C-alpha cells in the first residue's frame, strides 16, 4: 500500500514536468510584456528595458525556465511582481474560497445526483426516468455563467432571497459563508450533478441485471435493501470516477463562476494574473492546480479499494 502510493507519487514527476513546460511556453510565447504592463503606457522604453533586465526577462528562455524550475523543486514558486508577495502565499490566500465552493458544489451535486440516478434506473423507460434524464441533459448543456446569471436574476434581484455576488469567509460565520455560496455552488454543480446522475443511472442499470441481484431478491430482501445495499455499492466505482474527475475540474475550472459571482478564488487569481502578465503567479498556480488534480485522482484510486475488495492492494 505504502509502496503503491510512493510509486504513484513518483509517477507524478514526469506529468508535472510536462505541465510545467507547457505552461511556461504558452505564457512566454504569447505576446505581452510584463514590464510594460507594470509600468503603464506612459513609461519610457528605457525604463521598460531596465525593468526587463531586473526581472531576468532578457535571459534566454531555457535559462529562465531552469531557474524557475530549480526554485519550484525547492518549494519556491517565484515572486508575484504585481502583488509583491511569494506565489505560494497568493495561491493559498485564494485557495480557501475555491475549496469551499468546490466542496459545497460537489456535495450538492452528489446528494442530488445519486438518488435521482438510482430512481431513474429503477423506473427506466417511465415518465420519471425521461424527465430526470431530460433535466440532466439541460444541466449538461447550459453553460455555468448563463445559469449563474439566471440564478442571480431570479433569486437575488427578483426575489431578494440571496446575495447577488461576493464572498464571506468561514470565520465570518458558517451560515453567512454558505448563504453567499449557494448560488455559485448551484451554477457550478449543475453540470457535475447531471454527469453524476447519468453515470449513476447507466451503472445501476448494468448492475440491476446482475445475477447477484437476482440472488438477493430470491433471499426475500426488500427492494430498498437490494438497491441501496447490494446494487449501489457495486455501481459506485464508475460513479466515483466521475465524482473524482468533476471535483478536479471544480477546483481548476471555477474561473468563470468565480468571475460571475466575484469570488476571490484561484480562478479569479489566474484570470487576473493573465491580464497583469504576472508570469510567476500564472505558472505557479497552474502547476499547483495540476498537482491537486492528480492528487485527487490518487485519492479516488485508493477509494476504489475501500468500495470493492477485488481491487484492494494489501493482499495477504
Amino acid at each position, binding site marked *: 500500500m505504502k509502496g503503491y502510493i510512493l510509486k504513484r507519487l513518483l509517477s507524478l514527476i514526469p506529468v508535472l514536468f510536462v505541465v510545467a513546460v507547457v505552461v511556461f511556453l504558452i505564457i512566454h510565447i504569447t505576446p505581452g510584456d510584463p514590464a510594460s504592463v507594470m509600468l503603464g503606457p506612459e513609461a519610457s522604453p528605457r525604463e521598460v528595458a531596465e525593468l526587463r533586465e531586473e526581472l531576468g526577462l532578457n535571459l534566454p528562455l531555457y535559462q529562465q525556465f531552469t531557474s524557475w524550475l530549480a526554485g519550484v523543486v525547492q518549494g519556491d514558486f517565484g515572486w508575484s511582481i504585481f502583488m509583491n508577495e511569494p506565489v505560494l502565499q497568493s495561491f493559498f490566500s485564494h485557495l480557501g474560497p475555491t475549496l469551499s465552493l468546490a466542496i459545497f458544489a460537489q456535495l450538492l451535486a452528489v446528494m442530488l445526483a445519486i438518488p435521482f440516478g438510482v430512481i431513474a434506473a429503477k423506473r427506466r423507460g417511465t415518465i420519471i426516468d425521461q424527465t430526470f434524464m431530460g433535466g440532466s441533459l439541460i444541466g449538461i448543456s447550459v453553460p455555468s455563467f448563463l445559469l449563474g446569471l439566471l440564478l442571480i436574476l431570479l433569486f437575488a434581484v427578483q426575489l431578494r432571497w440571496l446575495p447577488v455576488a461576493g464572498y464571506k469567509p468561514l470565520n465570518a460565520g458558517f451560515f453567512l459563508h454558505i448563504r453567499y455560496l449557494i448560488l455559485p455552488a448551484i451554477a457550478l454543480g449543475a453540470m457535475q450533478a447531471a454527469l453524476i446522475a447519468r453515470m449513476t443511472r447507466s451503472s445501476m442499470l448494468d448492475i440491476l441485471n446482475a445475477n447477484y441481484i437476482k*440472488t438477493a431478491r430470491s433471499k426475500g*430482501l426488500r427492494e430498498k435493501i437490494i438497491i441501496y445495499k447490494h446494487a449501489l455499492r457495486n455501481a459506485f466505482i464508475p460513479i466515483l470516477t466521475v465524482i473524482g474527475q468533476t471535483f478536479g475540474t471544480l477546483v481548476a475550472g471555477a474561473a468563470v463562476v468565480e468571475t460571475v459571482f466575484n469570488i476571490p478564488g484561484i480562478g479569479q487569481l489566474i484570470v487576473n494574473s493573465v491580464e497583469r502578465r504576472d508570469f510567476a503567479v500564472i505558472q505557479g498556480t497552474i502547476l499547483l492546480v495540476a498537482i491537486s488534480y492528480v492528487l485527487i485522482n490518487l485519492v479516488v484510486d485508493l477509494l476504489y479499494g475501500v468500495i470493492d475488495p477485488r481491487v484492494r492492494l494489501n493482499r495477504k
Partner: protein
Amino acid sequence: METKLLEVKNLKTHFNTERGRVTAVDGVFFTVHAGETVGVVGESGCGKSVTAESILRLLDEKSTEYEGEILYKGKNLLTSTINEMQAVRGNDISMIFQDPMSSLNPVYTVGNQIVESIMLHQNVNKKEAYEKAIEMLRLTGIPSPEKRIHEYPHELSGGMRQRVMIAMALSCQPKLLIADEPTTALDVTTQSQILDLINELKVKFNMGTVMITHDLGVVAEVCTKVVVMYLGQVIEESDVRSLFSSPYHPYTDGLLKSIPQLTGDRSKKLHVIEGKVPTLHQVPKGCRFAPRCAFANEKCHDEMPELVQADTSRKVRCWHYKEIFQAGEESPYVSAADSY
C-alpha cells in the same frame, strides 16, 4: 397420499417486449411432494429457467404477466402480495442459480451474505446468525468455515462458491429448493460433488427439490420424477425410470438417443434431432414439435395436443404417443439410465 408441496397448474409467463408480447412459458404443469426431486429438462430457450423464476416471481413484473396457478401448500403465489412473496422467498422456497461466479455479491463477504438471509427470516441476533452460518458452511463441506466466512467471493473457487450458495439457500431450512442448473458452470468432478451434496441435504431436511437442467445425466442421478419441456410447454411428465426405458414423446425419444454411449460401435454417428427450435415469435400453431417430428401428420400441424394422462404415473402431449410407444420395441435407454 403425501402432501403436495408445490403444484404448478397451467403456468403461462408472458413478456411484453418492444417487439410485442412473447409467451416464454405456455402451459407448464407439475407437482412436487416433500422429499421428492423433480427434474425439469429441456434445451436452451425452452422456458425452464423462466419457469423456475416464475415460481418465486423473480422476473421483472413491469414487463411480465403470469397466468395459471402456482400453489405452495395450497396458497397461490401468483396472487400473493409482494410482502407475502418476500416472506416466502429464502424462507419457504429457496433458489440456487446456474453461475456461482456471478451469483454472489462481490463486495460483501460470504458470511455477510449468509447472515443477511438468516437475520431476515429468523429471530436471532448477529452472533447467533454467524454461528448458524458457520454451521451451514460446515454442512456444505467447506473446510475451516470459521475462516472462510470472512472471505470475499473472489477468494473462493467455483465449487466453493456454489457450496456457499447452497449454504445460503438452505440457511433457513426451506421446504422447497429450486436449483436452476446448479452444476452447469462447474467442472465434472465438482459437478458430482455438488449433486451429491444437494441430494444429501435434501434427505436431511426432507426438502422437495426442483432440479432444472439440460443434462439427462443429472436427471438420472438425482431425480425421482421428470418433466420434459419443449418451447415453453411440458410435453412429457414421467417417473425417471419409465422415461428412460420407454419415452412416449418423440422429442424425449430424440433427446435420449442423442446421449453418447460409452459402449458399442464408436463409428456410429450420434443421433441428431433435425431442424431448429423456432423462436418464440414464430411458434407453430399445432403441436410445437411437429415441424421437427418424424411422426407428424396434418393433425399435428393444425391442432395443439393437450397434456393427457397416458397411464397412472405419466402424462404426455402428443397425438401419436400410443403408436410411437408400440413401435419403439427395442429400448436401449435402460442401459443409458444405468450408465449414470
